[in-house]
């Protein structure tokens, strides 16, 4: 076969615009899906309001109100939710309805679809955080400086990376229905064992020693550093998070390859 020279070079569509459209479409689709938007945006606020009403007037330590502590905790929960559920259930659903197959046949580079997922998760995390911040400030009387908010935001985004790896591993491996069950079975216990849902020091010491291994424990530690209620240094927390990220992304990549090889080889 002679090397094909086309009379007119076949143009391709601009990738930036594709990424933008892909991200906006995800945002619209997710916002209209009550299961996802309530879980990601509603539940953290609801838990905050509930526990703030019960314990809000107490103090965790001098200068830090209980409301501040749980607002930061539910912020880790909110951002973690988006990481686990967006990638876990979202990717599994795309695979189940064979959107992945259709997209593969399109002139859409596969990486654009994945980057759109990540950009979407970032944007949604910021929305969730903004809602919590407003409710926390108005209802819970939480007062944090601008610098603290910025510090909290980057820590939440970096700290939730292992959970994106976890979500991707579930999303590329499980069917849509098992993905949801699996995500809850893995992620929810992690929140309890890491001191996000209940104070860490009330847990039995054996449970505590398990909890200290979990990515969510170090994620919460990283976030609490902004209000000084941490027991672990930023450096240690970041090392754990880096380790978990590498491990979970490696697992996710392996599962992704298996899925792609089976369908597209």
């Amino acid at each position: 076969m002679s090397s094909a020279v086309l009379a007119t070079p076949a143009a391709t569509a601009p990738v930036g615009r594709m990424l933008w459209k892909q991200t906006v479409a995800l945002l619209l689709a997710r916002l209209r899906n009550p299961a996802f938007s309530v879980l990601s945006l509603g539940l953290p606020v609801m838990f905050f309001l509930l526990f703030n009403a019960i314990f809000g007037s107490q103090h965790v330590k001098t200068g830090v109100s209980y409301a501040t502590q749980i607002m930061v905790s539910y912020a880790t929960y909110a951002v973690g939710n988006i990481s686990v559920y967006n990638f876990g259930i979202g990717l599994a659903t795309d695979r189940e309805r064979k959107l992945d197959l259709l997209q593969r046949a399109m002139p859409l580079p596969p990486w654009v679809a994945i980057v759109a997922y990540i950009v979407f998760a970032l944007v949604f995390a910021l929305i969730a955080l903004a809602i919590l911040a407003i409710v926390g400030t108005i209802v819970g009387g939480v007062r944090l400086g601008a610098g603290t908010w910025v510090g909290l935001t980057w820590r939440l985004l970096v700290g939730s990376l292992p959970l994106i790896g976890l979500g991707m591993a579930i999303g590329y491996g499980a069917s849509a229905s098992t993905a949801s069950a699996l995500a809850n079975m893995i992620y929810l216990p992690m929140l309890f064992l890491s001191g996000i849902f209940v104070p860490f020091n009330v847990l039995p010491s054996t449970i505590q020693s398990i909890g200290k291994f979990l990515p969510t424990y170090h994620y919460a530690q990283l976030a609490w550093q902004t209000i000084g209620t941490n027991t672990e240094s930023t450096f240690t927390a970041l090392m754990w998070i880096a380790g978990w990220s590498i491990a979970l992304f490696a697992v996710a990549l392996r599962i992704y390859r298996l899925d792609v090889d089976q369908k597209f080889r």
Partner: protein
Amino acid sequence: MPPVIELDHASKRFGHIEAVKDVSFEIGQGELVALLGPNGAGKTTSITLLLGLRTPSAGHARIFGLSPTDRRARSRVGVMLQESGVPDTLTVHELVDLFSSYYPHPLPVDQAIGLAGLTEQSKQQSRKLSGGQRQRLYFALAVCGDPDVIFFDEPTVGMDVESRRVFLASIKQFAEQGKTIMLTTHYLEEADELAERIIVIDRGVLVADASPTEIKSRVLAKRIAFRSSSHLREADFEGLPVTNLKIDEKGVRLLSNSPEAVLRELFRRNLDIKDLQVTGADLEEAFLSITGQPEPAAS
């Protein structure tokens, strides 16, 4: 100019199963070709090779002389897959707009929606569409990028008679605009009605590549049909050179390569025969005689 669509001694093996065996064909610009074959013949596998969804185990698939995975090739290809889904909370307009953004020179969104006959459903979320409307949405997604080549994999499955008629008409319209179209089907009359060229594939092997007329003329078989007041059973035809024998309340129908011998024997046995008809096989029968498959359960 390289051919628009090309399989070049392509084979595809899944484990021990060879789904496509050394298939070659070239399709030029503006051709409307039906890829015909029974279920499991390798039609969809051939399409997935041409779409770059799978890689041939041997040989090549090319679109405009390029690898089908090349984004320049994909930017000129539209596709309607047999099984595919889209996010169900997006509207028809949003989905067409999204898929248009994948292509360098898409049609205006409203025009693509209009071509699919979904203008009224434009603002509806895809989960609220009926089965037929959903098929039309996939049609809109296939054509919205104004591609030069369009693949339709079993496009009319599950469509009612009217949607099917409208759908086939719009495919013809695309062909008249100079688009190259390949569709797979196991509806034989659909291939006959629509395509100028039929490629028959069976058990992974290309068994015929010709015009519908040529395919029909290749068939030696004649169809014999008659009614009888005697209660005939299949056993009465034992030893006769017949295939595809059917006996029911409408009478007896069969195919035979030597109809004269069959009739001579039937008359010799003194069976009561009324309304005798001997005709050339139609495309469906031609197809059966080419592939040697038993009559599909559907008919």
